[in-house]
């Protein structure tokens, strides 16, 4: 027999030939994402030119030319302005932020008492972080501590005047501390109030429905600043003589009112999205109104509107900056107040301070929006088939 084999069968696959140079690696990516069409190329070039024009001076201003250390305005002003920097210098004055950092955090809170807000802050973070991480158990107790125990403790610690703590009046409060207290209280008050208002607006009782609707529409129709004005100017008018409300409390009331109305509309959106069958099912099981809402309707409705709720929180957090207009020193207010400090006044101080405040606000808001996205994805799993 002829042992010669005339057929040839490869036992291994041919190595794939390399793709054309233009179709792989960076070049392909650039071609696909930046220069796909002539229009794209033009846009890309314009964008690159814009970045080249904008970014290097910004980095130079923010970091390279910035004055990082120093004890006074001298390091942030040119010779002509009475400082030590060469003529034509401009850069961020981070030394200003460094020197005023404690003030930006606590306002004019007495220095020897600052451990109190610091302690509250640490406790807040220690309670908030486990609350936010879904895997950690005992959420119920955590919530009780965060929303019931902590506020009471914070009230005692921050205000003082009892348990041997020195009394610190609220006009001395300021900085990030005030911003955070205002937003925390606003959030904690507006969610339940918003839910009640939303339920009231969908109530079958005409009087209650009308009251809730009028409240929501009026508060939503006017700017927050007028609400704050009302709280700060008209609240004293409304109360009998001798009865005064603390300025800080007035701002808190104004902010909470405002946020509640917005929250109510968000919650109403969620309530409207729940099919009628759910409510009828609950009725047929013999649940009362509050049982029905608490066990059937609200858990579904609130889950649906988590993005809207967080957006309202973010809006509230940003809106707290408005209290600086009615003469309180939140983060923005205290930063602005320090512009007029003769020891640090220079042309670059305002911009530096505002960038610092802006970055702080941005960090909180961005964090909140990212967390809401994470929660949305987590809760969404139930609907996937």
């Amino acid at each position, binding site marked *: 027999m002829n042992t010669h084999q005339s057929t040839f069968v490869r036992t291994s696959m041919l190595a794939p030939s390399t793709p054309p140079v233009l179709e792989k690696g960076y070049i392909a990516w650039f071609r696909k994402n*930046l220069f796909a069409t002539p229009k794209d190329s033009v846009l890309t070039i314009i964008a690159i030119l814009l970045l080249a024009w904008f970014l290097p001076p910004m980095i130079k201003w923010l970091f390279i030319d910035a004055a990082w250390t120093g004890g006074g305005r001298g390091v942030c002003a040119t010779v002509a302005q009475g400082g030590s920097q060469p003529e034509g210098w401009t850069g961020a004055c981070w030394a200003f932020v460094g020197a005023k950092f404690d003030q930006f955090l606590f306002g004019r809170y007495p220095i020897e008492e600052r451990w109190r807000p610091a302690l509250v802050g640490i406790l807040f973070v220690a309670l908030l972080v486990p609350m936010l991480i879904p895997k950690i158990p005992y959420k119920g107790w955590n919530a009780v501590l965060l929303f019931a125990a902590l506020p009471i403790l914070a009230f005692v610690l921050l205000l003082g005047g009892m348990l041997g703590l020195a009394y610190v009046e609220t006009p001395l409060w300021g900085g990030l501390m005030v911003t955070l207290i205002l937003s925390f209280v606003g959030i904690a008050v507006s969610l339940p109030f918003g839910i009640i208002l939303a339920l009231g607006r969908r109530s079958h009782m005409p009087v209650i429905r009308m009251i809730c609707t009028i409240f929501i529409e009026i508060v939503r129709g006017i700017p927050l600043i007028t609400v704050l004005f009302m709280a700060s100017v008209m609240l004293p008018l409304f109360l009998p003589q001798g009865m005064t409300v603390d300025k800080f409390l007035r701002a808190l009331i104004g902010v909470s009112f405002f946020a509640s109305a917005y929250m109510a509309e968000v919650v109403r959106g969620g309530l409207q999205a729940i099919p009628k069958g759910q409510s009828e099912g609950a009725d047929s099981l013999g649940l009362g109104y509050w049982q029905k809402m608490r066990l059937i309707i609200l858990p579904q409705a609130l889950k649906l509107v988590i993005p809207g709720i967080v957006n309202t929180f973010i809006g509230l957090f940003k809106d707290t900056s408005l209290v600086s207009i009615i003469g309180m020193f939140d983060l923005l207010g205290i930063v602005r107040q320090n512009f007029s400090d003769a020891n640090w006044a220079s042309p670059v101080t305002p911009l530096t301070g505002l960038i610092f405040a802006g970055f702080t606000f941005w960090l909180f808001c961005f964090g909140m929006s990212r967390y809401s996205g994470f929660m949305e994805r987590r809760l969404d799993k139930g609907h996937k088939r």
Partner: protein
Amino acid sequence: MTIDATIPPGKAKSTGSVLNDPKVRGYIYQGITLLLLVVFVYWVTENTIENLKRANIASGYGFLNGRAGFDVGQSLIAFTSDSTYGRALVVGFFNTILVAVTGIITATIIGFLVGIGRLSHNWLIAKLSMVYVEVFRNIPPLLVIFFWYSGVLAVLPQPRESLALPLDMYINNRGLAFPRPVFDSGAQFTFYALVIAVIASIVFARYARKKQMETGKRLPVLWTVLGLVIGLPLLTFFMTGMPITFDVPIAGKFNLTGGSVVGPEFLSLFLALSFYTASFIAEIVRAGIRGVSHGQSEAAHALGVRPGLTTRLVVVPQAMRIIIPPLTSQYLNLTKNSSLAIAIGYADLVAVGGTILNQTGQAVEIVSIWMIVYLTLSLSTSLFMNWFNAKMALVER
């Protein structure tokens, strides 16, 4: 349930208490609420009257005829410190409208560009748009206002070293100077021509629509309208002998002369509101375009409609249905946010009202004026939105 407990068991067994009737209970709850509200309002009114009497403040709107005694920085109508409080409020109202309208136009343009940019296939453009949105959405508008006001515009050079911009504009720490149009006699014809052109355009667009419905042919609406609106006034302008000239600002030795100037207050408020609101509009636009299902454009392609026309005739009209309701509420937000003017002293309605409030102490009246004006604006907006939603609602079988 709490009421059940209070009813004696024997009674409930026999007839079923009236209190268990949800209707009756509803009346009782409403009665209690109404009573509490009336008592509360009465108590507040009594206190207010008492407090006002003690502070010697006469209530009522008579104070509006009093002499204002303060100047406003920028005003669209004639105003001096001898004018009345009422006129000052009108000035403030017009200033609010001015910054709202200019801000809305700019924010819409930036917002649409950025929103479309986020959907771009171009990686760089998409990322830049995203950075823009994430930065401006997460910073309080008040801070952006201060950023422009005390961070940027305040450190611009003095008038004598004004920076020259294109189109004969100058910018310095007192604001932006730009050429002011001067209308000579005969200029009104140009305006008439513009009005006629707009009316003619609307008539033509209707005709074109009808024609398309009947024959399926599309008339060149865009070019005709552009030609009419630009061409007709321009033609009239030249035919009447160029009656509109420009008063150009000229850099003098110490100051600029001529032209019109808008102050840094207006500029920073306008810039901040535009940039801030634009970031929200961008997100609305993005959501709107993505909200049109992909099948729509695929179907259009399958019918042989070209990509450009698909966008114009299929995607955009459907996207607009999603975009416009939230867009109007953003416009309303911008208008309300313009009240932040008070922080930098731009004389809008709230700032003027605040000054009057400090001078006269008429807190109730001023706040009521604020509320009436803003509520009118927001209610008319929601009326428009209801009308629009009804018009645009999907017509289903």
